[in-house]
């Protein structure tokens, strides 16, 4: 998965929880929880959506890697090399 693909996947997952959310224009190191006012429930929801899209389980400790656009893209492209 390319970083662009990862971004697109992330966008899809977040938009599911926050209708109309738009990742473009968001700083690469911005905290997603702050940017989209995700509480813990929202965040697990995003993780769950993400997991459903990419097709693999994301563990608790891995979810920490999803805090920013950058780290999430890195995590996703690392875990899902091809799509």
């Amino acid at each position: 998965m390319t970083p662009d693909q990862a971004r697109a996947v992330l966008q899809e997952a977040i938009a599911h929880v926050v209708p109309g959310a738009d990742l473009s224009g968001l700083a690469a190191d911005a905290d997603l929880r702050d940017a989209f006012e995700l509480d813990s429930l929202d965040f697990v929801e995003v993780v769950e959506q993400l997991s459903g899209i990419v097709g693999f389980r994301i563990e608790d400790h891995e979810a920490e890697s999803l805090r920013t656009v950058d780290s999430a893209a890195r995590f996703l492209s690392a875990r899902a090399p091809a799509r």
Partner: protein
Amino acid sequence: MPSLGADMTEGTLLEWLVKPGDPVHRGDIVAVVDTTKSAVEVECFDDGVVESLVVEPGTKVPVGTVLATLEGPDGAPAEPAEDTGPAAAAAPTAAASPPPPPSHPHHLHHGGGPGRISPLARRLADELGVDLATVHGTGLHGVIRAEDVRAAAEAHPAAEAQPASPPAVGHDAQARALDMRHSIAALMTRSNTEIPHYHLTLTVDLHRTLEWIRERNVGLTMSERLVPAAALMRATALAATEVPELNGHWVDDAFRPSEHVDLGLILSLRTGGLLVPRIGAAEGLGAVAMMARVRDLTRRARGGRLRGSDLEPPSLTVSNLGDQGVESVAGVIYPPQVALVGFGAVSERPWAVDGMLGVRPLVTVTLAADHRATDGAIGSRFLKALDRALQDPASTMEQTEQQQKEQ
């Protein structure tokens, strides 16, 4: 039109999910209704076949209006419609037949009670832009009268600043947000006016609970996975069972304990405002079940698909605002409840353990309680119970066998 909350007086039918001829069963979702608070799914309380849809989508009607009629399952006698609302669940037969002729018709209209509003009060509320759902009735048996509306209008002059209150087109998002703002304003004003609050704070070490969650999550699917909030709510429900003096309602100058712990969960909406749907009989839910309910509720609340039963009055409310990073939440009680539990952020802080300074994940729990109903000693007992539950997650967080049986 079901009453989707004790203070609801009218609603706008948004959408029918059934059509004439459709068979329906008790518990089916048959329509979506807009209250001033949110879009709510209307459940059917009888089995039968939809005979006719009486109210058109987009129509605002008072609570009690027949929305649709059902034929009995055998197609024979026209049986009650789904206008009977949650009350019908408790007393379906009463809802199904006309009320018996009162022996004293003279007094029939003094039955009063929540939701009764004088015509003048209704008119004034419209003129002054007051949301009647938030007005406390002081007439006989709680009837809302003109002076109650005037008092409410004075209590939140912001509403008065909009004298030409826009027609409450319920499904108009802006109008709804404004309505909701008014509701919250009036309710919180009422709370602070009526309820002598006291606040008690306790900081709790969560390291055992978080450890337990981490381990538990390994065995759970993605969609079952726990967050700390589920454990905090589980602990709250257990504490409320242990200290029932905080679980219930203050009505007519007396505390009425609730049979179950109906846990209200404050959800802030992205469009602004709050919803407080509840998790009924939460004392019977282990952390995993609690999590599933929280997740379902949150999802439906944000999707505008709450049900009538979600909006029945809680017996105790939890605010988990700490999720957003604040350290402590000293809340305002939702009348007629007598307590609210606020959780601050779970954060790693220095903590003395066995004479040594360590770093532990801590949460600050703040109990807001109604001094009319309880004194600080009881509040203190509640916080202690909550703490105990969080220190021994292995034995407290799972459903007991008894609870499993009851499920």
